[in-house]
């Protein structure tokens, strides 16, 4: 079993750091660096969490010649990670040459659709382009146990020491309240000391909380993602979604979560579909309906059911999303510690843009660069690490987040969730319903009639339109 190394000390494990038992298709490479050349337990940097943020940070640090330990609590990278299903890999161009030649991609997304659902209507904006199916590509469906293991292997190739099946249990400090000097782990003699800790320990980030970098935790900043992976033959997927052999589709859905603010998604893997819902936690807590019931409802919708018909459930999963974005971010640096990825709420949930892995990778890269610079300068104080925030401010990471900081609030609002999907569908139904022998109504009259019938006040509609323009414009 996976506990084979459980009686080893953290130092021994770091020294041995052999190939961890990976998922069937993923084979993280054993590393030339894991040969004992690195004095065990003595690292320049410990990166906690071998997700996209952590592996990117470890890769950058290793490349700059730093001794890096990449700590992962799961038996293999990606084993604890779940997401909707699409990676937007442009950020990899600056990290890995021709990454698409060996990245474990399921399908290249060439079709993106946004569906607005009511109980028995669907309004879909559907876009496709062949160009996204050619290098350098735009988006890809990928399975996290494969993708995360692949990226972690790149860090290992660069010299990082990957230690799996090891949970970081707390921060070490030079004195109470002082600078962070490493992490304790659940291995015997499990302390790992290092010049700097990069906390990429995910949405619950106990390390960033222990470091005092997070404010009070508010459930309103989180959504729960729950999904089903349904086995469907590749040919069937291509026929149903109108795709070529390597092409994929990405459907974002609103109006499918009942009284709970949120949304849904449907993505195509090679021979499976990923379908799921994202649910605002405070409403989920009181709504009295369970996540899998909402997924079942989505699968039964007349616009969705034919797409998923016959799909056999092969994995059910769930994960929290730091939905609140910019306004929920912790302090990004403290003495001896940086926070990146979901641990720093870098995931972008802005309606038409649902991106996380690219933000995690970019923040991890920035953390790696800032950490390497601080180590080289011999100053890992909060001030010495200020370059991390500067790097993020200069990149899309904080620029997008700051610009879209009001988007999560707007998108989870009652009108956007409950009223507008119905209103939009009713307007279009009215538009396309032939009323002979009555003549066609003018567009203005038609819209006015439906807005009145919806009970939405014009003042609110105008205010929301203005807010949307200001947020997305």
């Amino acid at each position, binding site marked *: *079993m*996976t*506990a084979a*190394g*459980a009686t080893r000390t953290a130092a021994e494990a770091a020294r041995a750091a052999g190939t961890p038992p990976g*998922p*069937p298709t993923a084979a993280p490479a054993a590393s030339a660096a894991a040969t004992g050349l690195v004095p065990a337990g003595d690292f320049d940097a410990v990166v906690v969490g071998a997700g996209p943020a952590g592996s990117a940070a470890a890769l950058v640090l290793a490349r700059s010649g730093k001794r890096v330990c990449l700590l992962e*609590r*799961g*038996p293999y990278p*990606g*084993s*604890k*990670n779940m*997401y909707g299903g699409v990676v937007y890999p442009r950020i990899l161009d600056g990290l890995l040459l021709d990454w698409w030649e060996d990245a474990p991609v399921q399908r290249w997304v060439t079709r993106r659709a946004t569906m607005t659902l009511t109980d028995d209507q669907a309004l879909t904006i559907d876009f496709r382009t062949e160009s996204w199916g050619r290098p350098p590509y735009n988006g890809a469906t990928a*399975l*996290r*146990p494969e993708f995360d293991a692949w990226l972690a292997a790149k860090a290992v190739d660069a010299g990082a020491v990957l230690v*799996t099946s*090891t*949970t970081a249990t707390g921060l070490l400090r030079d004195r109470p309240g002082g600078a962070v000097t490493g992490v304790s*782990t*659940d*291995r015997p003699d499990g302390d790992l000391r290092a010049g700097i800790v990069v906390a990429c320990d995910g*949405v*619950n980030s*106990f390390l960033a909380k222990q470091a005092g970098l997070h404010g009070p*935790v508010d459930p309103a900043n*989180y959504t*729960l993602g729950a999904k089903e*992976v*349904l086995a469907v033959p590749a040919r069937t997927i291509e026929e149903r979604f109108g795709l070529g052999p390597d092409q994929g589709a990405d459907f974002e859905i609103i109006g499918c979560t009942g009284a709970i603010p949120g949304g849904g998604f449907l993505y195509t*893997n090679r021979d499976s579909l990923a379908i799921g819902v994202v649910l605002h*936690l*405070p409403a*989920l*807590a*009181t*709504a009295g309906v*369970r996540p*899998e*019931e909402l997924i*079942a409802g989505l*699968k*039964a919708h*007349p616009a969705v*059911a*034919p797409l*998923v*018909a*016959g*799909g*056999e*459930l*092969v*994995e*059910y*999963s*769930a994960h*929290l999303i730091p939905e609140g974005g910019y306004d929920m971010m912790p302090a990004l640096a403290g003495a001896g510690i940086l926070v990146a990825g979901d641990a720093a709420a870098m995931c972008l949930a802005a309606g038409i843009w649902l991106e996380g892995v690219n933000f995690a990778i970019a923040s991890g890269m920035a953390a790696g660069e800032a950490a390497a610079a601080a180590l080289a300068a011999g100053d890992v104080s909060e001030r010495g690490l200020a370059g991390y925030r500067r790097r993020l401010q200069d990149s899309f990471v904080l620029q997008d987040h700051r610009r879209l900081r009001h988007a999560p609030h707007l998108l989870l609002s009652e009108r956007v969730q409950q009223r507008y999907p119905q209103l939009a569908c009713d307007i279009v139904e009215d538009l396309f319903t032939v009323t002979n022998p009555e003549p066609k109504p003018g567009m203005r009259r038609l819209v006015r009639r439906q807005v009145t019938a919806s009970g939405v006040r014009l003042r609110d509609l105008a205010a929301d339109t203005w807010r949307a323009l200001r947020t997305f414009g």
Partner: protein
Amino acid sequence: MSAGAVGSPGAPGTPTAARTAAGTSAGAGIAAPAARSTPAATAGGPGATLPVAFEDRMATVDFRVSPQAHITVDGDACRGCTTRACVTACPANLFVPTADGGILFNYEQCFECGTCYLVCDTAGAVTWRYPEGGHGVAYRRS
């Protein structure tokens, strides 16, 4: 914590029989959610996928169960709780109300998402940490 009071089937020191990757639920001690199917799916019409019993749903997931529980629940705190948010919000359906007003919980098929402690509004009722390294959920196709 008071494991006895809340009737945890997997209290520390009393591990249930280790489950295989196939996830047989023998010894889970929670019968109620296992038989539950998803009502909306059964009403899905001709195009719908087959309804899946909750037990079968969880059997699709690989759990490497630790003998140590990583969730603890304070039964006394739960008894005064009226919202019971964990019961419907937990995607793995690990929290089940008991007739005497307590909460029965199971840590073994936990997704480690954190929903339970975030939705819980009774201070200190749910204590949650990561399972020991190498244990817990191990996704393969997420």
